[in-house]
C-alpha cells in the first residue's frame, strides 16, 4: 500500500561530518517538498584569509575541516604555487602523494566502516558492532589509524600538518619511517581484502540516476593531485577554468549559491573518479571493483561507498610504490625561497569527497587579497537532492522509518562533509 501523505524531518543527520537536515513532504501522493538543509554555522574563511602572508594561508585553510585537512592544505599549496609560478620537485610531489594517501585512508575507512556499514547491518552505530563484529571493528580502527599515522609521519601530526609549506616540506621522513609506511600499507591490503568479504554481503539499494560526473583527469594515471577537469558530458578543460565548471548561481526562491555545469547538477567524488578514470586503477583495485560488482559507468549513488573501498586498494598500491621510490632517493629539506609578485593562481585536487578548488590573489608582498574555495560537498548537494527527488516517489510503499533510513543512507553515501561549507548552500524546491 502506498503512503499518500508522508512528512519526514530529520534534524541533524547523524554519522556525517557537520550539521544537515532532511525535509520531505508528500501530500496526496505528490512530492511537495524535498530538502537537504545545511545548518552548519558559517565560518567566513575566505574573509579570514584576507591580508595573511602566504606562509599562513595553508595552515589557516587546513582548519576548514578536520577530515579533509590535508586536502585543503594541498589544494592551498597548489593554488599558491600556481600563482607564484613554482614547480615543485619530484621528492615533494611524492611526499604529497603519501600525505594524500593518509587522508584517503583515514576518511574512506571512517566513512565505509563507521558511518555507512552500520545501516546495512541494522545497527545505529559502530558501537554495538564492537560486540557482534569485534574483529572487523578492530581492523577498521587499525586502518583508520594508519591514515592518521601517515599524516603524522609526512605532515608532522595527525591532522593540520606542520611540515607542509609552499614549495617544499620543512621536514623529510626518515628511511625507517618510510619502511614503516610500506610495511603497514602491505598489511592494510590484507585487511582490506578481509573487509571486502563484509562489503560483498551488503544489500546495496537498487537505485540508479545517471548524472554528469566531474573529476580531475590525467591520461595514464588515476589522478588525485594533478591534471585537468574532466566532465562525462563535455570532456576535458583546464583546471584554470574551474569557474566555468562550478558555475555558482542563484535561483529565484533562494539567494544562496548552487553549482551546476551542463545539467542542473553534477556528481563529484569516488564514483565520479571511478566512472571517469577506472582504466588507470591498479590491477588489484580493478580486481576489487570486479569482486564487489562495481562496473563503469555506474549510476547508483549508493555505490559511492564501494567505489571508495576500491580506491583504498589503489591508494595502497600507489603509495607503496611511491614510498619505495622515496626510499631510493636521498631526501633532503629543500630551499623554500622564491621571488614575490602580485599574482593569482588556482589549485585543483581530488580529496576524498571529490574535486576541490582554491583560488588566491596575492599582492607583491605575498599577502593574500582575495580567496575563493569551492568544496566537493557544495558541488554535490544539488545532485543529492535530485537523487532524493527521484528516489522518494518510488519508495512510498515502505514505512516512514524505512523511507527515512533509505534517504539518510543516500545522503551518507555521498559522505557529505558539511563542516567544509565555506559557502553554505540553502537548497529548496517545491512541487518536484
Amino acid at each position, binding site marked *: 500500500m502506498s503512503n499518500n501523505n508522508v512528512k519526514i524531518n530529520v534534524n*541533524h543527520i*547523524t*554519522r*556525517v*561530518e*557537520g550539521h544537515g537536515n532532511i525535509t520531505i513532504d508528500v501530500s496526496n501522493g505528490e512530492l511537495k517538498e524535498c530538502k537537504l538543509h545545511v545548518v552548519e*554555522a*558559517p*565560518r*567566513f574563511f*575566505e*574573509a*579570514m584569509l*584576507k591580508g*595573511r*602572508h602566504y606562509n*599562513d594561508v595553508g*595552515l*589557516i585553510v587546513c*582548519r*576548514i*575541516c*578536520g*577530515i579533509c*585537512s590535508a586536502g585543503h592544505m594541498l589544494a592551498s599549496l597548489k593554488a599558491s604555487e600556481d600563482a607564484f609560478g613554482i614547480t615543485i620537485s619530484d621528492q615533494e610531489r611524492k611526499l604529497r602523494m603519501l600525505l594524500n594517501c593518509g587522508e584517503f585512508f*583515514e576518511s574512506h575507512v*571512517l566513512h565505509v566502516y*563507521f*558511518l555507512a556499514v552500520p545501516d546495512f547491518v541494522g545497527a*545505529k*552505530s*559502530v*558501537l554495538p558492532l*564492537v560486540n557482534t563484529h569485534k574483529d572487523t*571493528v*578492530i581492523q577498521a*580502527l*587499525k586502518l*583508520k*589509524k594508519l591514515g*592518521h599515522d601517515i599524516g603524522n609521519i609526512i605532515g*608532522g*601530526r*595527525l*591532522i*593540520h600538518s*606542520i*611540515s607542509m609549506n609552499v614549495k617544499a*616540506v*620543512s*621536514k623529510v621522513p626518515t628511511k625507517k619511517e618510510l619502511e614503516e609506511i610500506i610495511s603497514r600499507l602491505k598489511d592494510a591490503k590484507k585487511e582490506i581484502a578481509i573487509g571486502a568479504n563484509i562489503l560483498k554481503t551488503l544489500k546495496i539499494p537498487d537505485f540508479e540516476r545517471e548524472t554528469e560526473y566531474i573529476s580531475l583527469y590525467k591520461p595514464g594515471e588515476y589522478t588525485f593531485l594533478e591534471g585537468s577537469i574532466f566532465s562525462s558530458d563535455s570532456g576535458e578543460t583546464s583546471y584554470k577554468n574551474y569557474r566555468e565548471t562550478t558555475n555558482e548561481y*542563484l535561483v529565484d526562491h533562494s*539567494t*544562496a*549559491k548552487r553549482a551546476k555545469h551542463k545539467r542542473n547538477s553534477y556528481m563529484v567524488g569516488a564514483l565520479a573518479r571511478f566512472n571517469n578514470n577506472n582504466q588507470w586503477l591498479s590491477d588489484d583495485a580493478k580486481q576489487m571493483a570486479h569482486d564487489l560488482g562495481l562496473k563503469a559507468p555506474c549510476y547508483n549513488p549508493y555505490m559511492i561507498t564501494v567505489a571508495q573501498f576500491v580506491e583504498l586498494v589503489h591508494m595502497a598500491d600507489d603509495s607503496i610504490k611511491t614510498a619505495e621510490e622515496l626510499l631510493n632517493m636521498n631526501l633532503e*629539506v629543500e630551499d623554500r625561497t622564491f621571488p614575490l609578485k602580485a599574482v593569482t593562481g588556482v589549485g585543483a585536487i581530488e580529496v576524498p569527497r571529490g574535486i576541490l578548488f582554491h583560488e588566491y590573489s596575492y599582492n607583491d608582498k605575498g599577502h593574500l587579497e582575495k580567496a575563493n574555495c569551492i568544496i566537493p560537498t557544495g558541488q554535490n548537494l544539488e545532485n543529492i537532492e535530485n537523487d532524493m527527488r527521484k528516489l522518494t516517489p518510488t519508495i512510498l510503499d515502505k514505512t516512514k522509518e524505512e523511507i527515512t533510513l533509505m534517504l539518510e543512507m543516500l545522503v551518507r553515501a555521498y559522505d557529505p562533509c558539511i*563542516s567544509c561549507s565555506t*559557502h*553554505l548552500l*540553502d537548497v529548496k524546491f517545491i512541487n518536484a
Partner: protein
Amino acid sequence: MPKPKVAFFDFTCCEGCQLCALDLTAEQLLDLLAVIDIVEFREAISEKSDSFDIAIVEGSITRDSDIPRLEKIRKTANLLICLGSCSCIVGINALKNFQKTEELQNEVYPDAPHRYETSVARAVDEIVKVDAIIPGCPINTLEFVKVVKNLVLGKDPDIPTYPVCIECKKKENICVYEKGIHCLGPVIRAGCGAICPEKGGYCFGCRGLVPDPNLDSMREIMNKYNMPYDQIDDRFKLFLGRNKEILQDVQ
C-alpha cells in the same frame, strides 16, 4: 560504580578534535569504553541521549542562536570539558573578529550578505562555566585520554601551566630563533610535546597563553630578531585573537 555517561557536542569548528580524540589503538579505545559510556557523538554514532554526566564540547560559539543549546548542555552535565582551541580559546575562529560582521558577510556572501547569522566568535567559557580544558589545534590524543581519566577518577585534569619551551628543551631541539625563525614557544602552554619547532616549524600558539605570560618580553625578543611589530601582531592574531591586550597595532 556505574560508568559515567559521556556525550560529545560540536559547535563552530572543523570537528577534527573529535577525530583525534578517537585516534586510539583498538586496545586503547576498548579500555576507554570500559570506564566510560559514550552516549552521544553525532559525528560517529546515531544514538542520542538527554542524560549524561560529562559533556565534551568542541567548537566556538559564533551564533547567538547556539547559546540556548550550550546552556542546556551545561545544565545537564555535571562536568563540562572544552575540547580543542576553538572551544577553549576561540582559536582560528577569532580571526574573523578583526573584521566587521558586515565586511565578512559581503566578502563571502556578496549576493545575500544577511542570509546567514553570525556574531563575534566566543570561547565556551565566555558563556557558561567550564570545568576543564583540553587545548590544541588539534588536541593531543594522549592528553585527552589523561584528562578524561583524571576527571573520572575525581582528580585534577592536570594540564601543563609551563610554556612550550620547556618541552622543546627536553627534546634537545635547537632553538628556532637560532635559525632565524620567530616562535611563540616562550608564552604558549605546553602539552603538545613541542612538535611544531621539532618538525621544521615554529609555535604559533594553538594551545593558548600560559596563565601569566610575559608578553612584553616576548614582543621584545621577536623584535630583536628583526620582526617588525605589525608582523608580531599578525602572528599573535592567528590563534590568540581573543587576547586583544597583546595586540598593539591592531585593536
